[in-house]
C-alpha cells in the first residue's frame, strides 16, 4: 500500500467527522503518533471530535454524560487522559476485615470516580431494588480542568466530615491492590499524574538526617533543598510507623467540607430532567470548591513556613520525632529525628498517596489471600456473564422463603452480596458463590467463604420444596444443579459443607436449598451503581480505618451511629 503523491493531504482533506470515525478504530497511541508526525496532523488530531470518539470507546459512561462532563474540562483529550488513567480502578474492591464484609465499589461519579463502601445491612423497607442501600464514601478522585487527578480520602472525626487531599501516585493497568500510603512529593503542579518507577530506582542513596533539638534555630535558607526521591518507600516501614505516619498526615491535611458540598458525590438516579439538572448544578459547585481547596492546600492549621511549631509530638520509631511541620501546597514537610526509620530529606514535602499496584496474590475459590497489615483494598475480578457462564457476576440475596420485602410482622432480612464465578476442577465446571457482604449482626463464616458450590454438569435430583412464592405465583424450575452449601465445620476459619441444590427459577432468580436443614438462600442480580445512586449515605469512620479496616472483628463496626440525625439506630444495621 504505497501512496504516491499526496502525503498527509489525504488525511487532511477528510471532513473531521470522517477523520474521527477512522481514528476511533485506532488506539490512543496510534492517534498520538499521527499527531506527532507533522503540524497539520497535530492540529487535526487535537480536535475534540477525535477524542470524544476515543472517550466513547472506553464505555465508562454514556455519551450524554461525556458531553455534560466536557463543560468542566479544557478538551475531550484532557478528559480522555483522566478516564484512561482511572479506568483500572473501577470495580469491586474488598478487604478481609471486618468479617461481615468490606466492599468498596469504585464507580464513575461526576467528573470523578468515587469509592463507595456498602456496609453490612438488612434489606431496606422498599425491598431489594429501592432499599435504599446504605453506603459511605471512602475516597474520590476528581478530574480537574486540565485532566489531571485530585485524590481525596473521606473520613469522619469528632462528628464532622472531612476530606483529606492527597495525590494519585500511579495506576497499573492490571492493578489488583489499592494502597494508601504517605510519600514524599516533589514540588510540581498539584495533582498531576505521574507514572513513576519503583522508588528504589529514583533513590541515589538513602539519606538519613539527624536532627537534635538545637536544630530548631535553623532558618529556611539554611536548609538543604531535598534531592528528588530520597528515603525509604512507605511500604518497607514497619506497621506501627506506617500507621503513625498516616495518622499524622491525615490530621494535618484534613479539610472541613461545608454542608452544601457534602450532600452529593454523584447525580442521583432520577427520572426527571429538572431534578437531574439541579443535582448537576450542585455537583459542579462542589467540584469547583474541592478543586480550589486542593490547590490552595487549605487546612485547619495556618501556614507556618519557616517557624517551628510543636505538633502533637508523636512517636515514630523509638524516639520523639515530630519537630516541625511546614505546609507547602497542601503537603507537609516532616522532619524526623534520631533513630527514626522513616528518612526524609529536609525540605521534602510529603502527603497522602493512592497507588494501584499489581501484586502476585494467591487466591482460594475466587477470594484473594490478603496481607493483614497493609492499608490496602484488594480487587475482585468480576466476570461478565457469557455462554457457559450465565450466572457470573454480582448477586444480592436473602435467607428464608418466600423471598420478598420485609414487613411489619416479618423481621428484617440480612442482605447478602454474593459473587458468582466459575472454576474448572478435575475436569468439572464448578459454579462458586462467594460471600462478600453479610448483613447479620454477628458473622458465622469468614468473609470470602463460598456459600455454595455446585457442579454445572450435574442436575439435581431434588424437587423444589415450595410450590409458590409470596405472591402465590407458581414456581417454575428451569434448571437445577447439585452441590454443597456451607455449614459449620472445624471452628470459624474452616467451614464445612452439607449437600444442597441450586434451582434456577423464573424471573432470573437463583435459589439454593440446603437439603437437610431446608435453609434457603434466594439470589437476584444487582446493579450496584444504580442501587448506590438511589441509596442513602451514612457516616464514615475515621479516615484510615475508613479506607482499610485492619482490625479483626466479627460484628458490624459500621453500626455505631445510633445518635446521629439520620436515625441510624434503625434495625437495618442489625446492631446489638
Amino acid at each position, binding site marked *: *500500500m504505497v501512496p504516491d503523491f499526496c502525503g498527509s493531504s489525504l488525511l487532511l482533506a477528510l471532513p473531521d467527522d*470522517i477523520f474521527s470515525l477512522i481514528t476511533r478504530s485506532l488506539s490512543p497511541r496510534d492517534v498520538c503518533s499521527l499527531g506527532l508526525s507533522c503540524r497539520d496532523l497535530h492540529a487535526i488530531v487535537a480536535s475534540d471530535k477525535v477524542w470524544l470518539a476515543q472517550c466513547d470507546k472506553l464505555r465508562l459512561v454514556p455519551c450524554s454524560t461525556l458531553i455534560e462532563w466536557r463543560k468542566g474540562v479544557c478538551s475531550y483529550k484532557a478528559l480522555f487522559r483522566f478516564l484512561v488513567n482511572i479506568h483500572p480502578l473501577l470495580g469491586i474492591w474488598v478487604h478481609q476485615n471486618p468479617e461481615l464484609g468490606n466492599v468498596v465499589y469504585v464507580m464513575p461519579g461526576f467528573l470523578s470516580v468515587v469509592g463507595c463502601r456498602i456496609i453490612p445491612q438488612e434489606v431496606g423497607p422498599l425491598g431489594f431494588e429501592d432499599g435504599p442501600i446504605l453506603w459511605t464514601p471512602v475516597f474520590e478522585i476528581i478530574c480537574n480542568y486540565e485532566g489531571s487527578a485530585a485524590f481525596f480520602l473521606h473520613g469522619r472525626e469528632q462528628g464532622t466530615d472531612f476530606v483529606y487531599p492527597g495525590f494519585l501516585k500511579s495506576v497499573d493497568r492490571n492493578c489488583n491492590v489499592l494502597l494508601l500510603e504517605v510519600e514524599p512529593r516533589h514540588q510540581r503542579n498539584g495533582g498531576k499524574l505521574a507514572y513513576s518507577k519503583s522508588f528504589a530506582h529514583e533513590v541515589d542513596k538513602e539519606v538519613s538526617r539527624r536532627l537534635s533539638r538545637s536544630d530548631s534555630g535553623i532558618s529556611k535558607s539554611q536548609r538543604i533543598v531535598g534531592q528528588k526521591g530520597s528515603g525509604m518507600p512507605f511500604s518497607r516501614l514497619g506497621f506501627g510507623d506506617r500507621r503513625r505516619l498516616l495518622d499524622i498526615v491525615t490530621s494535618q491535611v484534613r479539610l472541613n467540607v461545608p454542608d452544601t458540598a457534602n450532600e452529593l458525590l454523584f447525580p442521583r438516579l432520577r427520572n426527571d430532567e429538572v431534578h437531574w439538572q439541579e443535582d448537576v448544578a450542585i455537583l459542579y459547585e462542589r467540584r469547583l470548591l474541592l478543586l480550589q481547596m486542593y490547590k490552595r492546600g487549605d487546612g485547619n492549621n495556618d501556614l507556618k513556613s519557616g517557624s517551628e511549631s510543636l505538633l502533637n509530638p508523636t512517636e515514630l520509631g523509638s524516639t520523639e520525632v515530630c519537630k516541625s511541620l511546614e505546609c507547602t501546597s497542601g503537603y507537609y514537610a516532616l522532619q524526623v529525628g534520631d533513630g527514626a526509620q522513616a528518612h526524609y530529606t529536609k525540605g521534602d514535602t510529603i502527603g497522602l498517596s493512592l497507588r494501584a499496584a499489581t501484586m502476585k496474590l494467591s487466591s482460594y475459590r475466587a477470594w484473594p489471600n490478603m496481607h493483614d497489615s497493609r492499608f490496602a483494598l484488594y480487587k475482585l475480578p468480576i466476570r461478565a456473564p457469557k455462554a457457559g457462564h450465565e450466572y457470573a457476576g454480582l448477586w444480592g440475596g436473602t435467607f428464608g422463603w418466600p423471598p420478598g420485602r420485609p414487613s411489619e410482622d416479618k423481621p428484617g432480612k440480612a442482605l447478602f452480596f454474593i459473587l458468582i464465578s466459575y472454576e474448572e476442577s478435575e475436569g468439572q465446571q464448578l459454579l462458586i458463590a462467594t460471600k462478600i457482604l453479610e448483613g447479620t449482626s454477628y458473622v458465622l463464616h469468614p468473609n470470602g467463604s463460598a456459600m455454595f458450590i455446585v457442579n454445572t454438569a450435574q442436575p439435581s435430583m431434588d424437587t423444589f420444596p415450595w410450590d409458590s412464592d409470596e405472591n402465590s405465583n407458581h414456581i417454575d424450575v428451569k434448571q437445577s444443579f447439585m452441590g454443597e452449601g456451607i455449614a459449620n465445620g472445624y471452628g470459624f476459619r474452616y467451614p464445612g459443607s452439607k449437600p444442597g441444590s441450586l434451582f434456577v427459577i423464573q424471573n432470573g432468580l437463583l435459589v439454593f436449598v440446603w437439603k437437610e436443614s431446608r435453609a434457603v438462600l434466594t439470589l437476584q442480580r444487582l446493579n450496584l451503581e444504580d442501587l448506590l445512586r438511589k441509596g442513602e449515605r451514612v457516616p464514615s469512620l475515621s479516615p484510615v480505618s475508613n479506607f482499610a479496616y485492619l482490625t479483626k472483628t466479627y460484628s458490624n463496626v459500621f453500626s455505631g451511629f445510633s445518635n446521629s440525625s439520620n436515625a441510624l439506630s434503625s434495625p437495618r444495621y442489625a446492631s446489638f
Partner: protein
Amino acid sequence: MIPLPLIDGRTLARVITYLNKHTEDDASDEAKRKFDEEFLYGMEVGVLYDAALAANYLDIGGLFHEVCQRIADGMMNKSVEWVRKTFHIESEFTSEEEVQIKKEYAWAWEGVDSNAD
C-alpha cells in the same frame, strides 16, 4: 470548511461495483464478506480515501464503515517514523516544539509496562 470533492468516474464505478454485489439476491453473507475483502484489499490508498468520501456523500453506510475500517487498519500500531515515511511528511517542528509535543502526548505511551511491586 473543507469541501467534499466531487466523485470522479473511477471512484463512482467502484462504488457501483460494490452496490451491485451487495444487492444481489443470491449472494450469501459469506460471499459478500469475501468480495469486500478482495475489493478493499487491492485498493490504492488514494482510491480508498476517495471511496470513503464518496460513500459518505452518497450515504452508503456499509461501504463507508468498511472503507474507514480499512484505512484505520493500515494505520494501526505504526510508529511516528512510519507515518512520516508513508505519508511523505516532512516534520516541520523545531526541536523545542518537538520536545513540547512529545511531552504533551507522553501519557499515551505510559502504562505499556505494568509496575510490579
